[in-house]
């Protein structure tokens, strides 16, 4: 009888100790994916069925409303700068000496011809602010089924397979509203800095095209206490 009671109690404790509730899981995932005040230096490789292009990126992320992205060099000679303020994204055209608004309907297009969209590059909102999330657990992963709850969500529906040890997605599947698999996203490497697990190498595959694979490697990750507001201004963009 005593053995049975001990077994029952230990089962209850193990559930309490080792299984997390939904909010805890989402909080941990968001802590890793929606990092504020960070500067990245990254390389991006875009492969399609004909050739490969490389570019170097600089990203300043203050919060979900202030993001600055600069293509500092690329193998095809295209350099550009982007500023995200609130929901608007501005692109600076050096040859025209002006910045133009990338309209909401164009944000879903490929960033510099990659399989990552402008939204993928600049999105930094908390998952729970954008999606209604259902959490399922299997042996290896927490599976997040995310349905868009705001109109400007990057995707209508996506599924994220979260690693249980580090609370980072191993893989994400992105679906159309008709439930067709559009893209696959993988985090292949990560780095731990101050209790945050940062993706270090990510791969996005566009499944609608024969071969369109984009790999981003974050070479430098510089977590700051505070990033100046002045990086996220028209003056800095149009300098």
């Amino acid at each position: 009888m005593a053995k049975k009671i001990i077994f029952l109690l230990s089962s209850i404790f193990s559930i309490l100790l080792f299984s997390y509730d939904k909010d805890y899981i989402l909080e941990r995932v968001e802590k890793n994916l929606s990092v504020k005040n960070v500067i990245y230096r990254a390389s991006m490789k875009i492969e399609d069925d004909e050739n490969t292009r490389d570019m170097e990126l600089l990203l300043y992320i203050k919060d979900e409303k202030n993001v600055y992205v600069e293509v500092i060099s690329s193998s095809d000679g295209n350099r550009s700068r982007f500023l995200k303020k609130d929901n608007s994204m501005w692109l600076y055209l050096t040859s025209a000496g002006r910045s133009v608004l990338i309209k909401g309907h164009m944000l879903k297009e490929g960033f510099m011809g990659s399989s990552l969209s402008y939204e993928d590059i600049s999105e930094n909102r908390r998952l729970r602010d954008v999606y209604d999330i259902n959490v399922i657990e299997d042996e290896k992963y927490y599976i997040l089924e995310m349905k868009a709850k705001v109109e400007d969500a990057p995707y209508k529906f996506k599924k994220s397979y979260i690693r249980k040890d580090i609370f980072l997605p191993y893989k994400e599947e992105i679906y159309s509203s008709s439930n067709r698999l559009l893209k696959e996203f993988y985090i292949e490497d990560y780095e731990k800095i101050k209790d945050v697990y940062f993706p270090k190498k990510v791969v996005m595959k566009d499944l609608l095209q024969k071969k369109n694979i984009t790999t981003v490697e974050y070479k430098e990750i510089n977590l700051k206490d505070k990033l100046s507001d002045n990086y996220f201004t028209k003056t800095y963009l149009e300098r």
Partner: protein
Amino acid sequence: MKKLLFLILIFLSPFLFSFDLNFNYNYSYFYFYKINYFSSHDLVIDVENSNDFLKFFAQFDVRIYQGDSKYEIPYPDIDFSIIGVMPTYIYLSNQYKFTQLYLSLFNEGMNLKIGKFPVKSSFSEIYSPLDIFYFSSPFDLITLKEFPSNFLFSFSKKDITLSFVYQDNQDFFSSKEGLNLEYLNQFFNSRFFISRYSQVRKNLLSIDSIENYLFGLSLLTEHFGPALWNEVLILRSNGINKFNLQFGWDYTFFEKFYINQEFYINFRGLKTPYSDINIINKYLNKDFLIGRYYMFLTSVFKVKEKINISLNSILNLDDRSLIGVFNLSYNPINNLLSSISVVKTFGESKDEFYRIPAVFLFQIGTKF
């Protein structure tokens, strides 16, 4: 100022050890239907170097023309040679120019830019009278574009940006200055623009310099789905206010078809039919649009991943004459772009866009 700029650049060039270098080469073949044809080789070299507070940018353009490069086709019913206004043809000569050359000194919230660079004040795509610092017709596919010398100081604090521009023209009276205040807002991005500039106006009897004051207000929003914008502009010269209004929208349908439409009303524009004097004055002063009501259209259709069809046009709603550029571009491999364009006008002999023979343009280019 130009000499000072040159000296600064010479002084700084030894410190600019490493730089990005880009080449863009284009071969263009122009054919004026049943008139003539010529070709051009165009090499554009970009040099850029920057660090955390200084940027140097130069764009050098070499353009070599081959063949008979006469292209100006005047109004058919007006004899310009009698009044000596315009030669029958303009011959293009080879050109070697810095089209952009500037130094930019900046920190996070401030920017000082000196040199040759473009300045645009309006939200519009094809034409706005607000763009006093530089304007080039999108239908001019032949002339080499060279930006004028400017001095720009810009300062931002969060969502507000204040910029001052001074344009150094050859004589003091034609120099231009402008102050631009921009407020970024998720509902309405707004710009207020004020400037002063003098303008030389010619007619057959005299040449006069007119001082203009320009006040402009622009609003841009994408809060309602498609992007919407409008510009209100008042040009005050000789105590008379001239009003201009512009409004437009754009949208991409099904991620394939982009359309941008703008309407422009010049309340002081000329009424049709245009007289010979109106047309001669247009040539003398290089006026771009002289009428009252216009519609601009830009549309791009993505046929396939590497094939695009586009159409740009200006329609004069008074005399219903039109100029349009149809373009088919094909990007067979990365770094190689080919295109075929046709420029065509539809109008009567004294309409703003009078009938000219079609101009065909074939281009092939690469960049690395």
